């Protein structure tokens, strides 16, 4: 029977209820990592969008007509007046005024940061998933063996 060393405990030796617990624990961890990965992806998309928008805030679009959101369902017409600086939300309630080029650099840095974090999470997620697969296999094998043992013991007892 294939058994994988997990720390110092041989998974192949664990009794069925322990294996069940282990599978559940691994599933929880997998869910956590998957949700983290999704959140990172969302953040990456947002930063990408912001960067794209900055491409539109350029001197050639100066004084062009735009629609300015006043509320989530109301816009008013206006004109693009300042195409040199933008206010960037850097976190914890701080906003920094910087030139458009600096803003684009800022978003590029953020995107690289988030991508790096995603690359850190990916292999861990894959590893946990593999471990879960192996544990589930061993669990199923044990359950099968137990059922067979019970069946062969049944007629002998009767």
């Amino acid at each position: 029977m294939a058994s994988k060393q997990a720390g110092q405990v041989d998974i192949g030796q664990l009794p069925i209820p322990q294996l069940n617990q282990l599978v559940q624990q691994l599933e929880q961890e997998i869910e956590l990592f998957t949700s983290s990965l999704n959140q990172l992806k969302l953040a990456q998309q947002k930063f990408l969008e912001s960067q794209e928008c900055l491409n539109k805030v350029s001197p050639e679009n100066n004084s062009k007509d735009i629609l300015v959101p006043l509320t989530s369902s109301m816009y008013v017409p206006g004109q693009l007046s300042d195409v040199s600086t933008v206010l960037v939300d850097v976190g914890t309630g701080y906003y920094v005024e910087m030139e458009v080029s600096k803003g684009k650099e800022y978003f590029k840095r953020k995107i690289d940061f988030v991508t790096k974090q995603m690359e850190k999470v990916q292999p861990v997620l894959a590893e946990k998933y593999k471990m879960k697969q192996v544990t589930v296999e061993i669990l199923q094998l044990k359950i099968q063996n137990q059922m067979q043992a019970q069946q062969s013991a049944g007629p002998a007892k009767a």
Partner: protein
Amino acid sequence: MAELQKKLQTEVEKFQAVQKDYQKHVNLRQQLDAQLNENSLVKEELDRVEDGANVFKMIGPVLVKQDVTEAKQNVQKRIDYINGEIKRHEGAIKDLEKKQESQREALSKLQQQLQQQQVKAAARS
């Protein structure tokens, strides 16, 4: 024997209370960790800003202009405060872990005693 069961019950309740406390501290520490990361990012950004540039702080619905050095100091102070809180919680977490361990041992001893008594009572009857 009923008295032993009552004792077991109180010990179990105590253990659960310690566990809840432990969980609370762990959660707080996770929150603080996230805040620390966010503030570190903000500090990095503020370090990149040239001294003359405009920095605004959002207070409610209002953006208030702030001095770059002042903003940097504020963020640094917040980072230091968060670090202090994290250390405090980590200390509490370690203590609670030890308490949990000793509670667990006491519980298993009581359980063993109860089992032995039950076996003796069954043997008598």
